[in-house]
């Protein structure tokens, strides 16, 4: 059985772009926020960018 999800090319393209981008997040006083596999509420509060960055961190950790 093929479990692969069908994703429309438009969605695929957007997701690819999201994952290709290297995000850097700064605190209010300019310090870089370290994104690690554990994530944080702060990252989730940043919205989709924080979420993608966290998932990327998890993925690279697994690798």
């Amino acid at each position, binding site marked *: 059985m093929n479990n692969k*999800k069908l994703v429309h090319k438009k*969605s695929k393209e957007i997701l690819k772009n999201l994952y290709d981008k290297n995000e850097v997040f700064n605190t209010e006083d300019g310090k870089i926020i370290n994104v690690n596999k*554990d994530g944080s*509420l702060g990252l989730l*509060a940043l*919205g*989709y960018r924080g*979420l993608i960055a966290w998932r990327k961190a998890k993925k690279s950790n697994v690798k």
Partner: protein
Amino acid sequence: MKKRKVLLIGWDGADWKIINKLMEEGIMPSMNYLVNNGVMGNLATLDPPFSPMLWTSISTGMRPDKHGILGFSEPIPETIGVRPVSSTSRKVKAIWNILTQKGYKTHSVGWWPSHPAEPINGIMVSNHFQKMNDNKPTPLLVGAVHPPELTGLFAHLRIHPSELTQEHLLPFVPKAAKIDQDKDKRLFHIAKNIAESSSIHAATTWIAENQEWDFLAMYLDTIDHFSHGFMNFHPPKMQGTPDEMFELYKDVITAAYRYHDMMLGRLLQLAGKDTTIILVSDHGFHSDHLRPKVIPDEPAGPAYQHRDYGIFCMKGPGIKKDDKIFGATLLDITPTLLYLYDLPIGEDMDGVPLVQSFENPKEIKTIPSWEDIEGEAGMLPTEFQEDPYDAQESLKQLVELGYIEEPSDDMKENVERTIKEADYNLSRVYIGAYLHQKALPILEKLFNNEPDQYRFAFRLVECYKFIDKIDKCEEILNIYIEKEKKNILTNEDIKKIQQEKMPENLSEKEKENYERKRSTKLTTNRRIYRDLLQADLIQADICISKGEVKKALAIFQQIEKVASRSRGLYIKLGNAYLKLREWDKSIASFRKVLEIDPENAVAFHGLAIGFLNKNNYESSIESALDSVNLLYNNPLAHLVLGEALFKYGEIKNAENALKVCLTMAPSLGKARNLLIDIYENYLNNPIEAQKTKDYFKTGKIHSNTKEKTIIQEFETGLNIAQPRNIQRKELTNPIYIVSGLPRSGTSLMMQMLEKAGLPILTDNKRKPDENNPKGYYEYELVKKLATENKWLKNSINKTVKIIAQLLPQLPARYQYKIIFMNRDIDEVVMSQHKMLVRNGKAKEDTLPLNLKISFTKTIKKVQSWATKNHNVDILYVNHSDLIQQPEKEAKKIIDFLGIDADYQKIASVVDEKLYRIKK
């Protein structure tokens, strides 16, 4: 000019009581920024306070009877079954449809209910988007995203609770490690809430940053979910909460609000400073000593934890800064959005734009209805739209005809229960809209099926009370009490249940069942006991409606012995004391309410009335201000405020308060009279005085039913200031009154008016006798005028006889044309005495001459009252002139009444032979 851009954020169940405290502590900086740079206020909820109904009212500006969402679930149109409420059941356009129709780029995320997503001019992510199976990530439901090609993207932006780590959970539960997660599932629920809110937030931020938008709406249900699950662990610790549980979960609510503030901060950043931000909640949530200890065992029982006021704040170009607004309801959000986009408001909408929020309010444009405006509105095709309740009826018929298989009992029961709850909810909506007549048949049916259901019984009584059918109220209540009393356990029964020994050799599961059964018996008994107390309260209310205030008081005092912490009881008690004019006792009762609930607008209102009557104007002003600050939409509180300010000498402020009062309730005659007096005699402003008087020419009695109800409850029996020295009046739709002292020729005048063709209001209960051979023309209910005046609403354009002493009891909301019979006081006293002698109630040789002083005072009082009130026009007719020159007087009467009648015919009624007592 920049195009208007609006971000509408919905936080289900968010409450100012918590937010204010957290803002003070610096825990919600984004909220603090929003409040300091915009307007804030309470947002009054609707009854019933069930979220899908409320959020649909927010997005349509209409009550649920119009928008069609009537609960949490609905029957499935195409089969016998039940599903969560859906967008296809909404009968009217939501704001996103209207904006789509007008070409605005419009997006909506997670709004409840919005599944299946509608094809609007932008993206719609439905309310099922963030919901996933507890065990593993599940595919996104078909129809959850419009346009469908973005389904893959949004599916990816969802977060499953299992993804979260301790970094996410510890801020909510710092001692999470101590939880035995096999037994206590709360930590999982916290994770689920964080995951769901973060999913919605991720989707919203993607749209905000990557799409063109004029309008973006997003809805989060998580504050409500956290509150239902954890508010009882929020400090201060509730009695009965185990210490270890309190220690584990006391931070959850604060953390939930803090996390929402963090998300808000990000949205504010993405929206930019030129975007108008509106943040609302549909209801509040009790977070203090008012948290209910027991949740009623009824469908949607947890809604008892809700507070009546949600939150409203708005910031943006043209919006006032750091200001508070009053009187907003959730029905006003869609009209306010339309106003922001310079679009007309549908006249069929139940709300109004919150113009008080704007620095320079503009004119409000209206159209009859947005439903009639044709064009692509981004709604689902009509074949998708269906009334699930109608559909269920037709399905039932198909089953009966044998076309569809008979559903299982469980399914049938589910559908029946869903329909019953929807019916009950609809009846509550009607009651909330003061459409009691529409609620009646629904409640009758529900009550007849289940007469021991207190909620059906009590609401049915409420409806009958509203339409003055007091006999029916008593009948319903008695049926309920009789039924319910049979279910109550005796002390002996209770003791037996408590001492019952569990049978031996039971399995764990059997033991659990045994315990549950035993505890249910006791809980049900407590519930019945509580409901019967409520029935007593209603019984006391009925007594008040019948004018039996003292009897009501006795019932209240009985209840007080067993329920000494009841707000409802002390409000009723305070109002009863007001009716009895026992000001100190009423003040004491309302103070007790405030001890229990320091933010009770009704109690402050009652206090203001009590203080006013004790001439303590400063305290009255203070209490009235507290009342209107908490509940702005109460014209009577503004009236009391106006009166107190007037008496205190703050004339200009009194004018403002009365103007607000009349904006809400234009037919509140007492406010109008006082305002006219202020313009004429204190502010020397004849133009405004005339404008204020002109209302009487319109002939309107009540602008709406709600106004009528409020006024009817409070208007009489209170010490309302009366204005002075005013000339007479043009009245439309008056009640005609014949008045005078008893035995001054009032019955004769009634005969004349009957001859003139005016409809006469009499029940003929008092029969003609030797004293009045042609009849008394009396109406029994007049005698109860001081306590009961609802009958007056059916007396417009009719003629009724009311003795002079009772005239000042007439409520100011109606207009009166009065023919007042003046007769020599000595003749009146003699005639009355003669009548008493004839009836055997007085001796011939004891003429009560002291009555003369009293009667003279009565006449003066009436003259003064009639002059002061702009809703009263009076003609004084001299009894002896009438007897001597009946035709001349008849002409005067015809002229005064403005009727077309034959004066000779009217005059022919006068029979000089009956003028037996002459000085």
